[in-house]
């Protein structure tokens, strides 16, 4: 298998494609319960209660381009996440996720050259109120 160099520019391009568009999603009870089921937690049975705040993790994802590129031996991993929650979110809310690629940089680590990216995701409800903000740091080898 050949391994093509994965450069900082390619990493940035990949992220720009993955976060190209603002995503807007309806908060559905079924999706909240899928989230809770995966965690082996009880279903969200009261629509008057806010949904679990960390359910917001699930919003704004795109399946393509896939993080694991053909022939690649690395697809990267999450390094950290930081959430701030300002307002509760309820079933029936419509949340827009506005991504910003804050920076992409290269660092030399113990296992070689590493690429590190920080993406900020802002979550706004149907009233235009920012309900939460996520700062996600991704890391992958530059090989």
């Amino acid at each position, binding site marked *: 298998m050949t391994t093509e160099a994965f450069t900082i520019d390619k990493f940035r391009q990949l992220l720009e494609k993955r976060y190209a568009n603002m995503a807007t999603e309806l908060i559905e009870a079924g*999706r909240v319960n*899928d*989230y*809770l*089921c*995966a*965690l*082996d*937690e009880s279903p969200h049975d009261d629509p008057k*209660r806010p949904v*679990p*705040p*960390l359910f917001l*993790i*699930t919003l704004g*994802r*795109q*399946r393509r381009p*896939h*993080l*694991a590129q053909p022939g690649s*031996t*690395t*697809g990267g*991993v*999450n*390094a*950290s*996440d*930081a*959430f*701030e*929650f300002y307002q*509760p979110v309820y079933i029936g809310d419509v949340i827009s996720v506005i991504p910003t690629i804050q920076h992409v940089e290269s660092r030399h680590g113990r296992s070689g050259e590493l690429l590190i990216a920080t993406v900020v995701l802002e979550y706004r409800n149907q009233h235009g109120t920012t309900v939460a903000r996520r700062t996600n740091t991704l890391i992958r080898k530059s090989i």
Partner: protein
Amino acid sequence: MSANVSEVKPLPSMQKGPIERYHLVEWCAAENDYYILHYDERFARRMEFEAPLIQGTYKLGLSGAYIAQVFGKDTRIRSISMRYLRPDIEGSLLKLSAELLAQERLDDGYLYRVVIRVCGTNGEVSAEATAEVSTETAIA
């Protein structure tokens, strides 16, 4: 937050698992993110891991459930910041524990700052978070 607790207070722990592949695939579905590192052994081995990895965000989601268990369902998480320190492979038992670092009385309740640790089967801390949570009533 002003009032650090005089002695760091451990909070009840929670154990989850073993986290099997179906949990990881269900998490992929929940997140709408089918990164094959979490269900394809061949790819995991190419990345020099023993087996598919439990998603870091899974541990973050579990931390939210843990906070609700320890502080109550009406707890409001104001912030949580998690560092993913080590991978945990499928089949791991995850133990979540926390320490209370600071607390403050608010006009309408209480504010707590906690550190949460997630340990894998080998007992090593694989993720660590700090969180600020508020409650209407004081925790016991």
